[in-house]
């Protein structure tokens, strides 16, 4: 079985359990053998290769951290993070698919849903029979989701939703959309955010695909349009109240990203090492030149640091002491270094770096999105700033 060279200069594996290593390697083998042969065409032609969905489900990659009684694998955060790393070593679009299904859709149903909602949806989502999407961001409200315009109005037997969402991964292909909307809260005497399960085919609900992307091309991105959409009472998430509910999902997904982007960086680094040893210029491999060695040394060091940061974030999660700001630091740092590594890798590959013969430019373009979605780089900077000073820069 082919196996990608792992970046393990700092004996990272000694910090993992046998099961964590086995899980990472199994997913890594699958990515190498089953996904990599598909990705370049999917990226060129801008589609998600749906044929991999049953295989991802079979391996247990949807909602992997959730309990076995809902048909999930029940693994710990580090094992989950390592699966994200391996998926994103394939493509950020693949990791996004699994992130959205697990952390953004199955997690809120598990965390904020009723037992009935859990047993109805989670096993089918784990099997990949029901695909989910997560609707929080709007055309005019990205970093400030609390300003959203989508509204829910209480009516007899349920709610009526109106509004629009944008940049929604898997929106067009989703059977179930988790939509966050403002609802007048009788108890609080003001509007508050609530979560709703909107099923595909509901009257007034549509999800047109956003085309012409130069990034995450092997991933479906959509708008969600809600015009007088009736959602029955049973499809409201009973515990999903206030902005902290969707933000709680995002903390889960961002944790996965902190691990995931390390995979994309590894792919760029490994390709750069191989290329610089084979590409001969001025009579010797370009890897023999100081400028290239300096780049490789920087890339390698940043990957090792990023791995350790993500791992410690996971170990803190296991102990229940990981706060959203810890995840912010790991997401912010790791996305930044991964993008920087991809750019440096493009440089090392010269003109070849822009072609689909190498994974470099695909990862680089993807990482531009990953740096921005799930909390932009700047917002995470401000989260850290607030944590240091006690003063929130983004609140009045």
């Amino acid at each position, binding site marked *: *079985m*082919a*196996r990608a060279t792992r970046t393990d200069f700092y004996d990272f594996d000694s910090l993992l359990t*046998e*099961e964590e290593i*086995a*899980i990472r390697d*199994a*997913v890594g*083998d*699958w990515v190498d053998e089953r996904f990599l042969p598909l990705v370049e065409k999917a990226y060129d032609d801008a589609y998600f290769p749906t044929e991999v969905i049953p*295989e991802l489900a*079979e*391996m*247990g*990659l949807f909602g*992997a951290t959730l309990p*076995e009684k809902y048909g999930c*694998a*029940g*693994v710990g955060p580090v*094992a989950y993070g390592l*699966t994200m790393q391996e998926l994103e070593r394939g493509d950020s679009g693949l990791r996004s698919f699994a992130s959205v299904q697990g952390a953004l859709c199955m997690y809120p149903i598990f965390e904020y849903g009723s037992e009935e909602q859990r047993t109805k949806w989670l096993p089918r989502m784990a099997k990949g029979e029901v695909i989910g999407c997560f609707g929080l961001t709007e055309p005019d409200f990205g970093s400030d989701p609390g300003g959203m315009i989508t509204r829910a109005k209480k009516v007899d037997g349920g709610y009526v939703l109106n509004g629009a969402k944008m940049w929604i991964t898997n929106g067009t292909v989703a059977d179930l959309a988790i939509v966050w909307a403002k609802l007048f809260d009788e108890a609080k005497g003001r509007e508050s955010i609530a979560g709703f399960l909107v099923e595909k085919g509901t009257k007034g609900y549509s999800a047109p695909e956003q085309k012409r992307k130069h990034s995450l091309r092997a991933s479906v991105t959509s708008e969600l349009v809600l015009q007088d959409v009736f959602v029955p009472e049973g499809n409201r998430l009973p515990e999903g109240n206030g902005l902290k509910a969707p933000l709680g999902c995002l903390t889960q997904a961002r944790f996965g990203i902190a691990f995931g982007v390390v995979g994309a960086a590894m792919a760029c680094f490994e390709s750069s090492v191989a290329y610089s040893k084979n590409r001969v210029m001025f009579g010797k491999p370009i890897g023999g030149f100081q400028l290239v060695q300096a780049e490789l040394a920087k890339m390698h060091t940043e990957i090792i640091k990023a791995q350790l940061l993500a791992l410690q974030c996971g170990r803190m999660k296991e102990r229940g002491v990981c706060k959203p700001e810890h995840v912010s630091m790991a997401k912010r740092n790791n996305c930044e270094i991964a993008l920087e590594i991809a750019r440096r890798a493009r440089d090392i590959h010269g003109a070849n770096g822009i072609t689909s013969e190498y994974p470099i430019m695909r990862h680089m373009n993807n990482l531009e999105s990953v740096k921005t979605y799930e909390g932009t780089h700047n917002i995470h900077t401000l989260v850290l700033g607030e944590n240091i000073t006690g003063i929130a820069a983004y609140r009045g």
Partner: protein
Amino acid sequence: MLQVVCIKQVPDTETRVKVAGDGRTLDPTGVTWVMNPFDEFAVEGALQVKEKAGAGEVVVISLGGAGVQTTLRNSLAMGADRAIHLKNDTAAPDSLAVAKALAAAIRELNPQLVWLGKSASDDDAAQVGPMLSELLGLPCVTVAASFALEGTVAKVEREIEGGREQIEVPLPAVITCDKGLNQPRYPSLKGIMAAKKKTIEERAIDLGAAHVELVALELPPARAAGRIVGEGAAAVPELVRALREDAKVI
């Protein structure tokens, strides 16, 4: 129905092997060890039979040092029920000694099917399967390309020159597997977690005196550098002459 799968741990086919200082064994430093790729078809074959029957037990057996437990654990993660580790540190035991050790362990299990890869990707001897069947007194079908069980008869196909050979064999039987017999599954996350709780029974064994002695191990000679015979059309006669007289390929 109880089935046994015999597994060998081998260096990853992408490993660049080096010969150890003794000139007779591989230098284990930097080697990634994996399940012999042909054995993956054997594990998958047994699991499919068990799943189709809806019951039964799949026991995996491997002979080797402490390191083989990783590979046994991997087959447990794929879905095998339990493992037996025949502990022995001999670097390259001969095929008959291995077959005898396996036969002793397998006999008491009284399996209906014994599965192996058609050969191991390291020494490529392809001997253990047939030897094992002889020692167990069971029929053996080697290099199986397809497998179907009908009652107590296995219908097996083998790729032969210009066609396919169809064989029917009554159980119990020994089957050695070719590439393409099936699509071996990837261990699932659940399978990996479940494997943690499955048992690997260790048995120290003595292989006895070797029947075959491995005298020396050598890497193939490094490829010599190419030669440029000239440029353009003028170089063609010399190129043709070199290919015919020096390389003797045309």
